[in-house]
C-alpha cells in the first residue's frame, strides 16, 4: 500500500540496506582471515555494528525527508490499529460526528442569517442599521423622509445612507392578481448596498420622489416566474395595483433586499405615484428604515456620534415633531433589530454555546474510551518503547489515531450538515411574513467543521496518549500484574474524565429542562384574547386599485356576507393580527401629559372594526366598543388598553381625554383589558385601537366560528371571491396557527436543547458505566481475594457502587456550580420560570444521579456474582 509519492525513496532505502550488508560482509571476512570461525565472526561483526534498524533509521533522517516516510508509516500503523477494534472506531467516529454536526448545524444557521444579513451586498461588515429613540426588541421604522435626507446630506462619516420602507402590494394585469413584497427605496439604495443590476439600470437620484414615469426594479425570482425570464423586459410596462409602471431593471439572482431574513420581490422609489405627499413632507411621519455604509476607517462609535449631533440640530429646529427620545444608535447588520437578525442574535449564539458543550462532553467520552484502549495496548507500547521508540514518537502515533478518527467524523458531519443546515426554515409556521431564513453550507461552515474536528481529535487523544506513553516499559513487560494495570495515574485521568462528563452534561440537562418548561408555560399562558375559534383572512382591497369609497363599500359587503355564513358567530375587521412578530407603532402625544426626558412616546396601534373585542373576548373595562357610526364623517375616536391609560392618565378617568397622532386629535371612548401584542413574555407597551372605518388600511377579516375554524376557510375565501373575482384573498388560516409564530424561537431553543441534553445524558451514562465496569474488571483479582477473606456480596456491591457514586457526586457538584453560573445567560429567553428554578435543578440532578446509579449498578452486580475462586485466578 502506498500512501505518499516515492521520489526514489525505496531505492535509497534498498541501497542503505546493501551498504550495511557490505559493511558486515567485510567485517566478517576480516575476522575469518584472522582465524575466527564463520559463526563467531558473524556474531562478533553484528555485535560490533550495533542495532541495524536503528542505524538505518537515524541515517534515513539525514536524508531530510524522513518525516514524510514516518508519517506514511504512522498513518498505516494507525489505520491497522483502528481496523483491529472496529467497535471502538465505529462508536467514537459516530459520537464525534454527531457532536460536530450539532455545532456545524447551528453554525450554518448563523452563517445563513447573521453572517449573510443582506445577500448580494458588498462587505456587509461596513453597513450599520440606524435606530432613533428608545431601543426596543421589535422596533417600527424610526425615521421620517426629511430627517433622513438631512442625515444623508450633512453627515461626515458615511459613504452613503439609504432608506427603505418594507410593504406589500398586488401585481395586477395578469390572469390572477398576485401579492408581492416590495420596498419603497431611496434612489441610492442599490449603490449603498453595492449591488449591480443584471438587466437595465437601477434608480436615478431625480427619481427618488414622484418621478415623471413611475419605474420599478424586478427581483430575479419574480422576473423568472411571473415574466418568464423575458430578456427584453426592460422598458416594458407592467401593472402594479392597476397602475402602469415601467420596468427599468432586474436585480441579480439572490438579491432579496436590505431587511435581514425578509424577502422583497420588487423595488419602487419612495413615492412612485405621487400619492404619498403627506409622508414625504412631514417630519413626524416615521416610516423609513435607514442603513448606512461607514467610510473606511470610521468606527461605528464615531458614526453614531456624528449622526447624533446632526439629530440634535434637527430636533432643535423642529421640536414639535420630535417629542420624546431622539438619540441615534447604530447596530451592525448581524444584530440589526429590523428584520430577523434581532431574534437570531438572541437565540443562535446561545445554541452554539450549548452545542460546544456537547462537543466537549463527547471529547471527554471518546478520551475515556481511548485511554482504556491504550491501557489495553500497554504491552505493545512497552515493546515499541524498548525497541527504541521515544516518547514523542509514541504520542505522535497515538494522537494520529485520534486525528484519523476525528477527520472521518468531520467528513461524516459535513455530509450530515449539508442536510441539517436546510432544516432551519421548518421551524417557522406558515405566516404572512416573507421569511427568507435558512442555513447555508459555505466555506465558512466547512472550515468550522475542519477546525472543530481537528480540535476534537487533539482533545480526545492527546491526554490519553501522553499518559499512556509514560508507563515504565520494563515493569509492564516484566509482569502482567494488577499493580501496573493502567497505573494510578491512568486511574486518576479516567476518574477526571468521568467527572468532566457528568459536570458537562448537567448544564445541558438544566438548560433543556428550563427551555422545555418555558415552552410549556408559553403554550399554557393566557394571551388575553381568544385564539382557538378564530379564522383570519387577508383581503387585498387597498392594493387592488379600488377608489377609497369603493373600498369602504366592499368592506361593508364583506362583513355582511361573511356574517351570514352558517357556523360563523361574530365577524369583524382589523389590520393587524397579534403575536405574529409584527406590530405597528406611531408617536402619540397625549394632551396634558408631560413626558420624562428621553421618554419614548411611541404607542402600538391597530385599526379595528365594531365587534372586534367581542370576537376576541377582550373585556371592555370602561366606555364602549367602536360602532358602525365611528366612520370618516364622525369625530376621530380611540380605545386604549390599561397600559396606555395608566401611563398617560394615572389616577384619572381616561374617557374623553385626547391624544394627538399624525397631527390629528383623537378622543378616548373606551378602555380595554391588556392582551398580548408580540410575545407572551413581552413587557407591556401602550396600545391604542383606532376605528377601522376611520383609519383602516389593510383589511383582514376576523371571524369567530362555532367549530374548527379551518373547516370554514374555503367557504370564507369563496364568499369574498364571489364579491369580486379579481380580489386577492390570502393568508386564510386559524388564528392559533398565526400566533404560533410568537413561540417559534422557544420551539427552536427547546427542540435543540432537548436533543443536545439527550445526547449529553446518553454520553454521561455510558461514560460512567464504561469506567466503572472497566475498573471493576481490573479489580477482579482483588475482589476475589476480598471475598475469599470473608467479604459478603453486599460488601462487594457497596465497594463498586461507592466508587462510581463518589465520581458521580463530584461530577454533580461541579456540574451544578457550572450550570448555575451558566443559566443566567439564558435567563431572558425563559418565561414563567427562574434561571435557577429549584424544581428543575433538583429534578435534573436526581435524573443524572439516578442514571449514574443504574450505570454503576450493572458492573457492581456482575462483580458481586463472581465466583471468588475463579476471580482470584484472574489477573
Amino acid at each position, binding site marked *: 500500500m502506498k500512501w505518499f509519492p516515492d521520489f526514489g525513496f525505496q531505492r535509497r532505502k534498498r*541501497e*542503505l540496506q*546493501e*551498504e*550495511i550488508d*557490505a*559493511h558486515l*560482509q*567485510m*567485517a566478517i*571476512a*576480516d575476522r575469518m582471515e584472522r582465524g575466527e570461525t564463520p559463526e563467531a565472526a558473524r556474531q562478533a561483526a553484528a555485535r560490533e*555494528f*550495533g*542495532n541495524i534498524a*536503528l*542505524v538505518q*533509521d*537515524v*541515517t534515513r*533522517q*539525514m*536524508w*531530510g525527508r524522513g518525516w514524510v516516510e514516518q508519517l506514511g508509516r504512522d498513518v498505516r500503523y494507525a489505520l491497522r490499529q483502528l481496523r483491529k477494534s472496529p467497535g471502538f472506531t465505529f462508536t467514537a467516529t459516530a459520537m464525534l460526528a454527531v457532536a460536530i454536526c450539532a455545532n456545524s448545524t447551528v453554525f450554518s444557521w448563523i452563517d445563513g442569517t447573521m453572517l449573510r444579513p443582506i445577500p448580494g451586498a458588498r462587505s456587509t461588515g461596513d453597513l450599520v442599521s440606524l435606530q432613533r429613540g428608545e431601543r426596543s426588541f421589535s422596533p417600527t421604522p424610526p425615521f421620517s423622509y426629511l430627517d433622513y435626507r438631512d442625515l444623508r446630506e450633512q453627515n461626515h462619516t458615511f459613504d452613503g445612507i439609504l432608506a427603505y420602507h418594507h410593504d406589500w402590494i398586488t401585481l395586477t394585469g395578469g390572469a390572477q392578481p398576485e401579492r408581492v413584497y416590495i420596498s419603497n427605496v431611496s434612489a441610492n439604495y442599490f449603490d449603498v448596498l453595492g449591488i449591480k443590476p443584471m438587466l437595465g439600470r437601477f434608480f436615478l437620484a431625480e427619481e427618488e420622489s414622484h418621478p415623471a414615469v413611475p419605474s420599478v426594479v424586478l427581483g430575479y425570482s419574480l422576473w423568472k416566474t411571473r415574466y418568464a425570464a423575458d430578456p427584453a423586459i426592460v422598458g416594458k410596462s407592467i401593472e402594479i395595483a392597476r397602475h402602469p409602471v415601467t420596468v427599468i431593471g432586474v436585480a441579480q439572482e439572490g438579491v432579496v433586499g436590505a431587511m435581514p431574513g425578509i424577502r422583497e420581490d420588487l423595488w419602487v422609489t419612495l413615492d412612485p405615484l405621487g400619492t404619498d405627499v403627506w409622508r414625504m413632507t412631514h417630519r413626524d411621519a416615521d416610516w423609513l428604515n435607514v442603513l448606512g455604509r461607514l467610510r473606511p476607517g470610521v468606527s461605528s462609535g464615531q458614526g453614531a456620534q456624528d449622526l447624533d449631533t446632526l439629530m440634535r440640530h434637527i430636533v432643535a429646529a423642529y421640536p414639535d415633531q420630535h417629542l420624546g427620545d431622539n438619540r441615534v444608535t447604530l447596530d451592525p447588520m448581524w444584530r440589526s433589530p429590523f428584520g430577523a437578525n434581532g431574534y437570531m442574535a438572541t437565540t443562535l449564539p446561545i445554541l452554539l454555546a450549548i452545542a460546544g458543550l456537547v462537543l466537549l462532553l463527547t471529547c471527554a467520552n471518546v478520551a475515556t474510551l481511548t485511554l482504556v484502549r491504550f491501557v489495553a495496548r500497554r504491552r505493545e507500547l512497552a515493546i515499541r*518503547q524498548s525497541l*527504541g*521508540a*521515544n516518547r514523542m514518537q509514541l504520542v505522535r502515533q497515538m494522537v494520529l489515531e485520534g486525528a484519523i478518527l476525528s477527520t472521518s467524523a468531520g467528513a461524516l458531519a459535513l455530509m450530515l450538515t449539508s442536510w441539517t443546515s436546510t432544516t432551519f426554515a421548518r421551524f417557522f409556521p406558515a405566516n404572512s411574513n416573507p421569511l427568507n431564513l435558512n442555513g447555508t453550507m459555505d466555506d465558512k461552515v466547512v472550515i468550522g467543521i475542519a477546525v472543530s474536528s481537528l480540535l476534537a481529535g487533539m482533545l480526545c487523544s492527546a491526554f490519553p496518549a501522553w499518559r499512556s506513553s509514560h508507563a515504565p516499559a520494563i515493569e509492564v513487560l516484566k509482569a502482567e500484574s494488577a499493580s501496573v494495570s493502567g497505573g494510578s495515574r491512568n486511574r486518576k485521568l479516567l476518574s477526571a474524565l468521568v467527572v468532566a462528563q457528568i459536570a458537562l452534561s448537567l448544564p445541558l440537562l438544566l438548560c433543556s429542562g428550563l427551555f422545555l418548561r418555558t415552552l410549556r408555560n408559553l403554550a399554557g399562558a393566557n394571551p388575553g384574547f381568544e385564539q382557538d375559534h378564530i379564522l383570519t383572512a387577508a383581503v387585498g382591497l387597498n392594493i387592488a386599485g379600488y377608489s377609497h369609497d369603493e373600498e369602504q363599500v366592499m368592506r361593508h359587503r364583506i362583513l355582511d356576507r361573511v356574517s351570514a355564513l352558517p357556523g360563523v358567530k361574530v365577524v369583524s375587521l382589523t389590520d393587524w393580527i397579534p403575536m405574529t412578530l409584527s406590530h405597528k407603532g406611531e408617536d402619540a402625544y397625549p394632551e396634558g401629559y408631560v413626558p420624562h426626558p428621553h421618554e419614548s412616546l411611541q404607542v402600538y396601534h391597530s385599526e379595528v372594526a365594531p365587534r372586534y373585542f367581542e370576537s376576541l373576548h377582550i373585556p371592555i373595562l370602561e366606555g364602549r366598543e367602536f360602532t358602525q357610526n365611528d366612520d370618516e364623517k364622525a369625530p376621530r375616536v380611540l380605545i386604549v388598553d390599561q397600559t396606555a391609560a395608566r401611563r398617560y392618565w394615572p389616577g384619572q378617568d381616561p374617557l374623553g381625554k385626547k391624544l394627538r397622532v399624525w397631527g390629528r386629535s383623537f378622543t378616548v371612548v373606551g378602555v380595554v383589558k391588556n392582551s398580548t401584542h408580540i410575545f407572551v413574555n413581552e413587557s407591556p407597551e401602550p396600545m391604542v385601537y383606532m376605528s377601522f372605518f376611520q383609519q383602516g388600511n389593510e383589511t383582514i377579516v376576523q371571524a369567530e366560528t362555532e367549530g374548527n375554524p379551518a373547516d370554514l376557510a374555503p367557504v370564507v375565501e369563496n364568499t369574498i371571491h364571489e364579491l369580486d373575482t379579481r380580489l386577492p384573498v390570502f393568508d386564510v388560516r386559524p388564528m392559533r396557527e398565526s400566533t404560533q409564530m410568537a413561540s417559534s424561537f422557544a420551539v427552536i431553543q427547546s427542540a435543540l436543547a432537548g436533543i443536545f441534553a439527550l445526547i449529553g445524558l446518553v454520553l454521561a451514562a455510558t461514560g460512567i458505566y464504561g469506567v466503572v465496569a472497566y475498573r471493576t474488571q481490573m479489580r477482579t483479582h482483588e475482589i476475589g481475594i476480598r471475598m475469599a477473606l470473608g467479604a459478603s456480596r453486599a460488601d462487594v456491591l457497596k465497594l463498586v457502587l461507592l466508587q462510581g457514586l463518589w465520581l458521580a457526586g463530584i461530577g454533580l457538584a461541579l456540574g451544578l456550580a457550572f450550570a448555575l453560573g451558566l443559566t443566567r445567560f439564558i435567563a431572558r429567553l425563559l418565561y414563567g420560570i427562574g434561571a435557577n428554578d429549584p424544581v428543575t435543578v433538583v429534578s435534573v440532578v436526581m435524573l443524572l444521579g439516578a442514571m449514574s446509579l443504574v450505570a454503576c449498578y450493572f458492573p457492581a452486580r456482575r462483580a458481586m456474582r463472581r465466583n471468588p475462586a475463579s476471580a482470584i485466578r484472574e489477573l
Partner: protein
Amino acid sequence: MSEKDQYKNRIELLQGTLDMLILQTLQWGPQHGYGIVQALRVRSGDVLQVETGSLYPALHRLERQDWVQSEWKQSESKQRARYYRITAKGKKQLASDLGRWERIVEAIGAVMYVKPEESES
C-alpha cells in the same frame, strides 16, 4: 533516554570532529564505510572506535551537503560496496575544520598548561 537519543547526542558532540576525521580519511583516497572505520582505528592506534550509528548518518549528511560523493564499486575482495570520495567543496570544508580544530587545541592547551608562576601571581 532511549538508545537512539544517545546516538543523537554523540553525533552532536562529535559532529565537527567526526566530519573532519571522515573528510581527512577520504583525502587519502575513496573509501567505503567499513574502510573508514578501520582506517580511523589503525591511524589512531586503536583509540578511536567510530560507532556505525554515528558514521553512516554522518556520511549521508556529508553527501547531502555535497562535501562527499558516492558510487558503487567492487572492492579488492570482490565485494560490491559504496565508496565515498571527497569533493572540492569538501576539501575546502576540511581546511576550515582543521584550522578551527587547531585553534581549539591551542586555546585549550593555553588553558591547561599554564606555567605555575604565572598562575600564582
